[in-house]
């Protein structure tokens, strides 16, 4: 198995990563029925038993995980298929759906997790964060599909598939990565599921019985059993172990973390200009305006409707003038039309997916009859990437980025609205790699955006379909949701689940795609979306317009405020993404990731953490008058970011709310940088000064970071052009020192203000700079809230400095 894993890794071009993984270091014991192998560190062992075959991973005397302990290992070997009459009938009903030419080839294996009651991950499902047991119901299905108006709390397959499951208990976090891109099903059962609280109590009181255990079974339609076990033991360890296999989150351009205004569709250039103007008139910031499929000439991607968008460069220049940007959609279905250059080239180069008889596979999508380029072919991807060159994609400019939709792929007249399983990608059937198609589309597109800038600029590409590793290419969103309160709520567990398995850049359509939200729902959705990684409003073609200013001045003001909170916090968001890129830690986290021993947090999915320092409990109830937020951490404190009120940790806190409330708390012991001067786009704020929010722990300590780079190029990586500073408050002194001595970057930004929460009143505050100068700082002290505000340190954000309070 482990050898298999390495072979696979090599196939995925991750050779060097694999060599870092634990390796079996030696036979410890052996008899006729098995061997005990050392796994190296931490007295971990692998026991291989022959009859019956099973694998047990041990730490000391404890079993961490067993494979095939239930004997559900199954596989079918490839053979020449003889067709039964029943199959013939089925193949008429579902052509190309059921049977491969080499006969049935499914595989299966079970995993037992002793001591585990909570498992997470395996997105994408519209379900709770904690996965449910599937006894008596359908297993969780992983099969990328374009689902019309998906249902909630349902294990049905959606647009993307990441076959990675995390297990967590107060003792340990682990992960299982089932590397298989064929249709996959996951069954979960638990010996404690269904027990009442009383039953569990009884077990406890009677000192009873069995250890809790979760059993999982994976089934895939084809392929080989190729599994990576991540042993943790901490959540952080699992994240870095998983990212060593599939890579980390792409570091997006800073502006991509700002607000995006989308709609199917902005009708024409005038409409785009009017919406752009609307944002300025109502003083609401935004960075990106999006064009859906109607902007093209007859759904021919890489083209423009000649009547509606006759001068795309003028339009884009208009946005450049406002320091704003645009995203246009490029879907992978290509109109079969001999007067369409893209189609002709793909056809003549033989780049289309083939049907089983060798002809080009065709299906119906937005443009009508369409071909589907074979993105699994590296040559095809290289060609596709070249189509994003400025001289190829006519009317494109540097401030235009890309959105890949429908890349499951969606085939309107295909089985389950997707590609026939017997369609051929080279020698591989779609059956074998279905869930990978969308990843390759986004990969090729992101590569195109990088290439067009000569490798200088970071790309930004949004995708709907995804697979393990998609995080390397950009952002994902949760697809075509609905303007309903339950859909607002589910956006939290859906993005949390994605974050746990590598995809941090996640968001849901603000307002809901289908149907029309009530004003209250729209406002609440903006407030929630402002604190989720990918923040984009989007709406279906048939819904009434919903630009933020269409609901009266009060609601415009509420939405403006939510968007402004997002912009002010962009330095922190950017820093979190830098870390996600650097070390694979999720940006949006379930509470248990930071409080792994606090069992109260294990099932929470109505609140979440951003990094480790901000706790968000958005209001997602209609007519909500209050929320009960759980503030974790015994002995810790949390500060309301709006009122600066201090609350103790390890409590359920009832917070009365109004329509303007977005309950957010900063952890005592943290320092968060913000930019208080919110402007009309994030680019306009580039050189603005920082305000530091220092939230003291009960021990009067705090620590944070400040990360700055140019916001859009790879220079941070290639030339180490960035500033990364450690901010720490201890012994009544706040200081900034360099965390990355090898780096260099010059910023005009300076420190405008320092707000210290939970402070006491000093007699004086002195700023010391490296040139040896000392300046007294003016300050204000709010005794009722214990907030100390230092006026205008004025020191450059990139240099060493210390403020001493006396």
């Amino acid at each position, binding site marked *: 198995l482990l050898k298999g894993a390495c072979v696979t890794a090599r196939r995925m071009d991750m050779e060097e990563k694999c060599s870092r993984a634990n390796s079996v270091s030696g036979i410890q014991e052996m008899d006729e029925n098995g061997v005990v192998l050392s796994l190296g560190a931490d007295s971990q062992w692998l026991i291989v038993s022959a009859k019956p075959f099973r694998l047990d991973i041990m730490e000391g005397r404890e079993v961490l995980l067993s494979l095939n302990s239930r004997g559900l290992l199954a596989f079918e070997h490839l053979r020449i298929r003889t067709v039964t009459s029943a199959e013939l009938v089925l193949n008429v009903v579902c052509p190309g759906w059921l049977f491969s030419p080499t006969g049935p080839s499914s595989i299966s294996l079970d995993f037992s997790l002793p001591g585990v009651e909570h498992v997470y991950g395996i997105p994408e499902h519209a379900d709770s964060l904690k996965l449910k047991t599937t006894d008596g119901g359908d297993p969780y299905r992983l099969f990328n599909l374009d689902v019309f108006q998906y249902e909630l709390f349902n294990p049905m397959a959606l647009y993307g598939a990441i076959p990675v499951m995390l297990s967590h208990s107060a003792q340990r976090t682990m992960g299982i990565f089932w590397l298989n891109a064929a249709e996959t099903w996951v069954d979960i059962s638990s010996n404690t599921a269904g027990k009442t609280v009383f039953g569990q109590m009884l077990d406890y009181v009677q000192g009873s019985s069995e250890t809790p255990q979760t059993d999982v079974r994976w089934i895939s339609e084809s392929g080989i059993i190729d599994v990576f076990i991540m042993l943790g033991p901490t959540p952080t360890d699992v994240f870095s172990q998983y990212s060593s296999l599939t890579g980390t989150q792409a570091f997006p351009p800073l502006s991509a973390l700002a607000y995006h205004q989308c709609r199917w569709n902005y*009708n024409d250039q005038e*409409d785009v200009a009017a919406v752009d103007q609307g944002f300025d008139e109502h*003083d609401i910031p935004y960075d990106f305006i999006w064009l859906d499929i109607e902007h093209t000439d007859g759904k021919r991607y890489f083209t423009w409707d000649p*009547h509606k968008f006759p001068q795309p460069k003028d339009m884009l220049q208009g946005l450049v*003038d*406002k*320091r704003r940007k645009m995203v246009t959609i490029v879907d992978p279905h290509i109109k079969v039309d001999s007067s369409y250059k893209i189609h002709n080239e793909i056809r003549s180069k033989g780049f289309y997916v083939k049907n089983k008889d060798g002809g080009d596979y065709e299906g119906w999508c937005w443009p009508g009859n369409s071909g589907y380029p074979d993105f699994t072919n590296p040559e095809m991807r290289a060609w596709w990437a070249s189509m994003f060159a400025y001289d190829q994609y006519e009317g494109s400019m540097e401030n235009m980025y890309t959105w890949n939709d429908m890349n499951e792929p969606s085939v309107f007249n295909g089985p389950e609205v997707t590609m026939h399983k017997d369609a051929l990608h080279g020698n591989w059937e779609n059956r074998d790699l279905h869930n990978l198609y969308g990843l390759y589309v986004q990969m090729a597109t992101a590569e195109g955006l990088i290439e067009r800038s000569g490798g200088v600029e970071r790309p930004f590409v949004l995708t709907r379909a995804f697979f393990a590793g998609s995080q390397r290419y950009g952002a994902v969103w949760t697809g075509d949701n609905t303007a309903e309160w339950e859909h607002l709520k589910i956006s939290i567990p859906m993005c949390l689940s994605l974050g746990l398995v590598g995809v941090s850049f996640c968001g849901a359509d603000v307002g809901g795609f289908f149907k029309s939200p009530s004003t209250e729902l729209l406002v609440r959705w903006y407030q929630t979306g402002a604190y989720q990684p990918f923040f984009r409003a989007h709406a279906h*073609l*048939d*819904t*009434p*317009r919903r630009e933020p200013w269409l609901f009266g001045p009060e609601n415009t003001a509420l939405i403006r405020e939510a968007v*402004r909170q997002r912009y002010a916090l962009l330095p922190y968001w950017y820093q979190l993404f830098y870390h996600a890129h650097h070390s694979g830690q999720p940006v949006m986290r379930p509470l248990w990731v930071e409080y792994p021993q606090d069992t109260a947090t294990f099932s929470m999915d109505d609140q979440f953490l951003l990094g480790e320092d901000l706790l968000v409990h958005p209001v997602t109830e209609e007519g909500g008058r209050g929320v009960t937020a759980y503030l974790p951490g015994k002995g810790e404190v949390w500060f309301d970011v709006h009122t600066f009120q201090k609350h103790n940790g390890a409590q359920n806190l009832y917070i009365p709310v109004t329509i303007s409330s977005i309950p957010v708390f900063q952890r005592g012991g943290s320092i968060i940088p913000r930019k*208080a*001067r*919110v*402007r*009309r786009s994030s*680019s*306009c*704020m580039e050189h*603005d000064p920082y305000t530091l929010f220092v939230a003291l722990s009960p021990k009067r300590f705090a620590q944070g970071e400040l990360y700055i780079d140019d916001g859009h190029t790879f220079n941070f990586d290639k030339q180490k052009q960035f500033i990364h500073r450690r901010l720490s408050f201890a012994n009544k002194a706040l200081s900034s020192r360099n965390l990355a001595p090898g780096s260099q970057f010059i910023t*005009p930004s*300076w420190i*405008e*203000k320092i707000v210290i929460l939970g402070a006491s009143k000093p007699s004086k505050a002195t700023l010391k700079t490296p040139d040896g100068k000392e300046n007294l700082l003016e300050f204000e002290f709010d005794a009722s809230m214990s907030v100390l505000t230092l*006026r*205008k340190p*004025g*020191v*450059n954000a990139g240099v060493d400095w210390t403020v001493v309070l006396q």
Partner: protein
Amino acid sequence: MSCALLLLLTSLALVMGTGTAVEIQRPRGVPQSKRQFYEENKPFTCLDGSSTIPFDQVNDDYCDCRDGSDEPGTAACPNGSFHCTNAGFRPAFIPSSRINDGICDCCDTTDEYNSGATCQNTCREMGRKERESLQIMAEITKEGFLLKQQLIHEAKRGQEDKQGKLTELQGSKKGLEGKMEALRTVKKTAEDPEKEAKERHLKSWEEQKELIRMEKDKTRMAEAFLELDDDADGYVSVAELQSHLELDPDSDGSLTETETQGLLGGAGKVDTSTFETVWSGIKDKYLSEGLSDPPAPVETPKEEESRDFVSDHDSDHYPEDYAGEEEDVEDDEEDDDHEEEEKVPPTVQTPEKREDDELSMPPYDTETQILIDAAQKARDDFDEAERALREVDGQMKNLEKEIGFDFGPSAEFAYLYSQCYELSTSEYIYRLCPFNRVSQKPKFGGSETNLGLWGQWAGPEENLYSVMKYDHGQGCWQGPNRSTTVKLTCGKETVVTSTSEPSRCEYLMEFTTPAVCQEPASLDEVLHGHTEL
């Protein structure tokens, strides 16, 4: 470090239209009207009074006042605003966040003094353009307003005309009502004798028909007897009758001896006189031996005539034949069951009945016909009077509707009533019929779509008559019913200038008309109304 930004404008020359240069001193971003609050070297009190700060903290790029008033010239305060003088054009306030953001907002470039953005001073050019367009607008307004006076005048006259017409119609309606009542009596008087005469005629025809039928029956019986009496012995025997399988009472395909005897009333044979009783029992089934096959049931219009004649004597309209019935498309969807029934051919008729049906009623006698004619005339006269009254009613209703419309404070929009205005785009022809409906028709074939029916005036409170709303148009898939907002602007001509669909199924139309032209202010007022000196 970029924090020493206090900058007093020492000599900002404001070039006015006259070319006079005025020198003023005030901190950056402060409008002339607030200049007195910013006195150099004196402590500054925030305009909301919330605190007082040293003057060197005004415009020092740090926000001290809650209302943002200490930083009129920097972006430090989130709620501040910056004043651009824009000499040569209109002065303006912009949010502080647009100061030094790299985007030129003020035409005099004063908002970008430290961002590296290169802005061109476009105030004079903009001023010139605005002046030009205001001039054009003023001319249009002037002419439009004159036209509007004319429209008001015409509307007033039209309104009076309509009121007069209405009064007139009310008079004639009364007359028509009287006439109709009189004719109703006449009609009744003529219809009663008509009805009696018709019934008489019908009754005698029924009696006559019965006689003929009996006669025919007798003849058939005699013929049948002769036919059956194969051996011509003057009796019909069991054996002779047994060959007529159609008479089989239990329809099992064989006519047994017992069954036949039963048909003959228990006797072995019957003579002519006894046969009368037997005949009445078998005549409906009996088939003449001369016919080898039973006759196909053929429906004839005549048969229908006779069937309906009695009940429908009042009318000269007969149901169409079956072919006609099937062609009747309107019926098709209304009532399938009914139609099915009609399509089933009628049951087999006996030859006797068929012969009977060939008989038709003799024409009315002269006396009856005279009565009928008289009644018909009375009916026609009455119908005519009724029609005339309905017409007058309709006219009155239309007039009342038109008079009832809100055509604006001085009925200046009345001239749009029952007019339509079209605009052709690349794909569609849009049609606005004010106070009626808006529609859209594809240029290259396809049916018209209703984009909304007249709803109401929908402008803002102070300018209600600037927007028309048309709603309840054709429904949209998964969406609302189509609706159209029509924005009215002053123009010399009445014309649709643009249409768009900003949101799915919500249309926006721009429409110029003199009827919304306001009394023109003098041009000087327009141009200098907001200029700060």
